[in-house]
């Protein structure tokens, strides 16, 4: 289960950054003026370290 979670924590940000933006490039919905593709990637630039540090913590345990 732990291993599956670790794989997920690495795979989800990869898919979120590599695949998803190609499908959400449009002008709406906006967040602080930013188009979807911009805020989506921005969000995942913040979430990715959290995911990787969680994997790191699980690995150490």
């Amino acid at each position: 289960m732990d291993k599956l979670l670790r794989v997920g924590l690495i795979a989800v940000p990869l898919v979120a950054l590599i695949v998803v933006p190609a499908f959400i490039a449009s002008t709406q919905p906006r967040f602080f003026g930013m188009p979807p593709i911009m805020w989506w990637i921005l969000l995942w630039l913040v979430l990715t370290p959290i995911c990787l540090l969680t994997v790191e913590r699980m690995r150490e345990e």
Partner: protein
Amino acid sequence: MSLPVPMLIVAGVVLGTIAFALLVVRRLGSDPTQFILGGRSFGAILLWVLMGGELYTTFTFLRIAGWVYGRGAEIYYVMAVSGAAYIVAYLYLPRLWRFAKERELLTFADFFAARYQSKVFGAFVALLSTCTEALALLVYLTGLQIILGIAGLGAIDSAHAVFIAFGLITLFVFTAGLRGMAWASVVKDSLMLAAVVVVGFVLPIAFFGSPAAMLDRAIAVRPHDFNIGAWTAGNGKLWYISTTILNAVGFFVGVGAVAATYAAKSEQTVRRNAALLPLYGLMIVPLFFAGYMASLVLPGLHGRQSDSAYLRVLQAHFPLWLLGMVCAAGTLAGLLPAATRLLATASQLMKNILDDIFGIAKEGAAQTWATRGFIILVAATALCLWLFLRASLVDLLLFVYNGATQFAPGILFGLFWKRVTLAPVAIGLVIGEGVAFVLTVHRFPLAGFNPGFVALALNTGMVVLLTFALRVRLPKAQKSDWDLRRA
């Protein structure tokens, strides 16, 4: 002749940074590991700026805003790569560090020589990667020329300024090695942070009231530039996805990035840095703002001119000292990553050609001085190529990244797949480089795929196919060596 204010500031910042780094480093000694890898002792901060330095170059500083200025949403791949590349790095850099530490590897090509047990292959990789790195240096020099041209306000020949700046930084790396580069990069990254805040937030606020209002205006004026084209269109969905994958996989397989990894003091440092570095990608966002702002304030620029659009806005509407500070950050962003690559390239020419093949400069001071000699040689060659041939090198420059990423299968399979051997990797590499070159130069339509990605896929497929076809049985000794490495 008196220098314009921005150029004076650029000169002062570059000289001040060099002086600061030299003061911190003091005496370096003649140990090649100290000179080339900083004694494998870099902690979190120095490793952070070296690994992050790959992200903040003149390309980032000029090209991203230039692309935003004139292209569609496909250029958001740059932002995505700044996160995805570190996820990939998190998966393999710790293992690469361990492999290098156990065998006391010095250079990028050392990995290939050690893993595939062939010094000749190591020398081949050293020569091939030197070619791609030399071309990358030309890209940096071209970026520097744009920045120094703006800082000179048209009063100074920018080619001469590039010549002097690159000469200075070459002497600096000659003296201070990787440790000096790392300390200078601390200054560079601090300045870059200040510069991107100015161009990404201060400029939009000055013209539109806020970045959000500026984006509203940009979306109203050019709504189509926020869409990505159909799957197989020129810069469509397939192009976006394949380019992001190519860049994420290839981001850390360059000679400079691998040298930075070897320089870490522990595997833990490499892991933690790779995990946290996506936060560094946030610094790219203001450059997108700068590009949109420039397209609204100063429309109508084309080609290379669009790369310097926001600097032109700064030049026309803001005090010259501010332009000088931003140009100084851009200049360091060109010089320091170039110098790191210069050092890494020179060290592998010393180690993998001079030492491994010709048996010259076997150890100690001789290796350090041979590396210094190659630093001068590679820098002089790059400058001459740039001065005399830059106009005819455009197609070759497009090949830089596509060519450099072809080393990825050799490193990744080498670290994770014990069955892979020399022949499949060597054949895959030659095919990958050849295909990347032909596809990039001739610009064949590839149903929307990035040419470098197609070459990388062929390269990878060839390695897998040949490895299964040859069905190599590992000798017992090599098996136990592998198990030890995985432990």
